[in-house]
């Protein structure tokens, strides 16, 4: 049946049709929907793992056991999972094992713009790069065959525009895959030096065989048209190139990005007058072509940073591009903001008021960095807040420890905050860590995690108790506050900063967007009492604005959390009757 399908959903469909039976992933835009969609098939066991390293090791274990397995993550997730990746390249697989990594050129929702293709090259594993939903589905199925044929994990590289675009796909039925038998084979699976030395030559031979395969495989194809220009491209760039050139250029479209073919490229080069390489991010195809001795146009005109588009490519190649009419007007920007009623707001207000140095982390709460709260000094990668506050306090001691905190979300804490916390307990810095427990992984669109008590299907699951965990790690001072209660937040923060031992403050209140959270009626302004002092506006709540010298409450946004009431000295913000 023909349907419109999101790239990520098509990948999930591919998993289903390929007979994949185990999926373990950690969320991250733009990869999250792959696993959410896979979880809708009863035939596939799906889970959210605490982080990407765990997820990949789970998938590896399932492959070892003989089943087709999968794990998905965003580009930076592969940094976390790099350790198992590099060595399961040596062990190879038993059941087929496929990994999805989704890059985010343009940084729509990421902290960097790294190019995952480097990982495939460094770990010496094949990488496929589909260019629309239909290819995503087909490549996923074939990735499992490739994995089993060449005894290797296979990476499917997505990017924002493939993952989050819908295009037409044709679905088919799930195939019945006979699980492989697990047989003990220590020289293959026990990677200690003696055995790993035997596996490394296997990896090199496999790369040779895969390079041979790449010369003439399903994934790579030549589309001959005008021979004045030849373009080598892949992924979403292929679509832009088709848009720009139509029949005015011949195209070598690479669907397998590692290893890259040699003769296929050299033959194509011979047939065209001028060779252009169009690839987002780093010059990987280009470097390969240059090593083959080819004279190409690439990053000398095309940018390394940011996303491409049809107009960007045309413009960089000196072709004409359409233009539109522009308003000559300074338009205010519209950055994302913490939602009205967001439980993170109360804590960041308190930190801002106490002029704390805040070593931050990644999640919705990173929005605490922007005006008017401006309450964040650093964000690096998941988990870094806790480790860095320890380093900061070791470096600056008494000068910093009474006003410096780490802030980290519940999901991020489970992902990679616990080890940093162990370091504080072990190496003893007088650090204060605030865990922002909103009972969900908010940023990526509400995924369950080990602290929420539910699994990916929403069924009851194991629940890790944060207080008990922190105490077990060695913290004597573990406090819980309600972020809607500003006085309590302020008092506890001051006490824990002053204490002369490390402490954890857990700020606990579920995300207001969770379905089970009961929203209160919007507050109402008492026009006679409001003097327009703007005290409540220091919160940066999107439901509060300033109109005609008084506060205005947007009743479609306000959820009646009441935090602003605590800042109003004139009792002007009222709970609505009824």
């Amino acid at each position: 049946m023909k349907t419109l399908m999101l790239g990520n959903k098509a990948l999930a469909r591919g998993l289903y049709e390929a007979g994949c039976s185990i999926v373990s992933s950690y969320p991250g835009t733009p990869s999250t929907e792959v696993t959410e969609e896979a979880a809708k098939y009863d035939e596939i066991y799906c889970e959210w793992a605490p982080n990407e390293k765990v997820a990949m090791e789970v998938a590896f274990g399932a492959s070892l056991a003989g089943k087709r397995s999968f794990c998905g993550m965003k580009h930076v997730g592969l940094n976390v999972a790099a350790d198992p990746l590099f060595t399961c390249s040596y062990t190879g697989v038993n059941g087929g094992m496929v990994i999805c990594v989704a890059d985010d050129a343009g940084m729509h929702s990421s902290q960097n713009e790294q190019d995952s293709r480097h990982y495939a090259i460094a770990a010496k594993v094949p990488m496929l790069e589909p260019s629309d939903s239909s290819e995503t589905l087909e490549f996923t199925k074939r990735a499992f065959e490739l994995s089993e044929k060449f005894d290797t994990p296979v990476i499917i590289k997505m990017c924002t525009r493939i993952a989050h675009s819908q295009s037409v796909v044709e679905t088919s039925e799930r195939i019945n895959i006979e699980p492989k038998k697990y047989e003990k084979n220590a020289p293959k699976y026990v990677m200690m030096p003696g055995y790993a030395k035997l596996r490394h030559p296997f990896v090199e031979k496999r790369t040779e065989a895969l390079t041979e395969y790449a010369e003439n495989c399903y994934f790579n194809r030549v589309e001959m048209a005008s021979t004045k220009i030849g373009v080598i491209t892949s992924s979403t760039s292929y679509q832009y190139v088709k848009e720009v050139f139509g029949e005015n250029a011949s195209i070598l479209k690479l669907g397998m990005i590692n290893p890259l073919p040699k003769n296929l490229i050299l033959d194509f080069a011979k047939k065209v007058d001028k060779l252009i390489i169009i690839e987002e991010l780093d010059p990987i195809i280009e470097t390969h072509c240059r090593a083959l001795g080819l004279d190409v146009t690439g990053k000398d005109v095309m940018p390394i940073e940011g996303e491409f588009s049809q107009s960007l490519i045309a413009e960089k190649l000196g072709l004409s591009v359409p233009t539109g009419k522009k308003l000559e007007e300074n338009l205010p920007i519209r950055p994302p903001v913490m939602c009205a009623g967001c439980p993170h707001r109360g804590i960041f207000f308190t930190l801002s008021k106490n002029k704390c140095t805040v070593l931050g982390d990644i999640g919705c709460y990173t929005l605490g960095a922007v005006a008017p709260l401006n309450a964040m000094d650093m964000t690096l990668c998941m988990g870094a807040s806790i480790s860095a506050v320890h380093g900061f306090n070791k470096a600056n001691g008494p000068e910093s420890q009474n006003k410096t905190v780490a802030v980290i979300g519940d999901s991020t804490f489970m992902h990679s905050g616990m080890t940093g916390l162990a370091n504080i307990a072990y190496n003893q810095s007088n650090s204060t860590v605030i865990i922002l427990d909103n009972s969900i992984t908010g940023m990526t669109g509400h995924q369950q995690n080990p602290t929420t008590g539910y699994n990916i299907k929403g069924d009851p699951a194991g629940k890790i108790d944060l207080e008990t965990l922190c105490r077990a790690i060695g913290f004597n001072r573990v406090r819980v506050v309600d972020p809607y209660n500003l006085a309590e937040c302020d008092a506890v923060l001051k006490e824990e900063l002053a204490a002369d031992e490390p402490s954890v403050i857990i700020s606990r209140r579920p995300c207001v967007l969770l379905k089970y959270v009961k929203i209160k009626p919007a507050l109402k302004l008492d026009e006679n009492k409001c003097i327009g002092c703007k005290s409540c506006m220091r919160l940066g709540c999107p439901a509060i604005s300033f109109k005609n010298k008084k506060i205005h409450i947007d009743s479609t946004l306000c959820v009646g959390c009441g935090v602003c009431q605590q800042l109003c000295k004139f009792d002007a913000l009222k709970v609505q009757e009824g």
Partner: protein
Amino acid sequence: MTKNIMIVGVGGQGSLLASKLLGHLLLTEGYDVKVSEVHGMSQRGGSVVTYVRFGEKVYSPIIDKGEADFIVSFEKLEAARWIEYLKPDGRIVVNTQEIDPMPVIIGSASYPENLIDKMENLDIKVDAMDCLSLAEQAGSAKAVNIVLMGRLSKYFDISEEAWKNAIRACVPAKFVEINLKAFDLGRGNI
């Protein structure tokens, strides 16, 4: 020829339903279709944009400056922000609702005035209407997206029944009546 529709608005306003509806409709009408969305930060009140492209064969999923045949804007300031993406002879359908962005809320910027007039002064075809009131009249403030679809439908050579079938297919059963009314109000049927 590929036709391009851009849907712009503020995160949380319901543009995903509009693009789902268009995708369904255009596929049923026999076109090749691509829809590109940005997920992730979109709940958080930021500026959001969705691209819908259709034709005999569509390659790129995105729309560049000067390429949109139609822009459907859920909010006035967002209309102004993305207007450069409209073809010189394209048309923008805009909800006149104003939603203050954070710089306006905290007083570091003000909401620009007379944006509709300013666009019209550039000889841009602007079709502006208060969709929020019409949506409320239909029975739910959330139906702004379908009011806009009703308006957009006037400029398409696709039967009204096909649009309504797409609504029936994309909207949960209990909201179909409200949304059909919203569509009629947007299209000017009532």
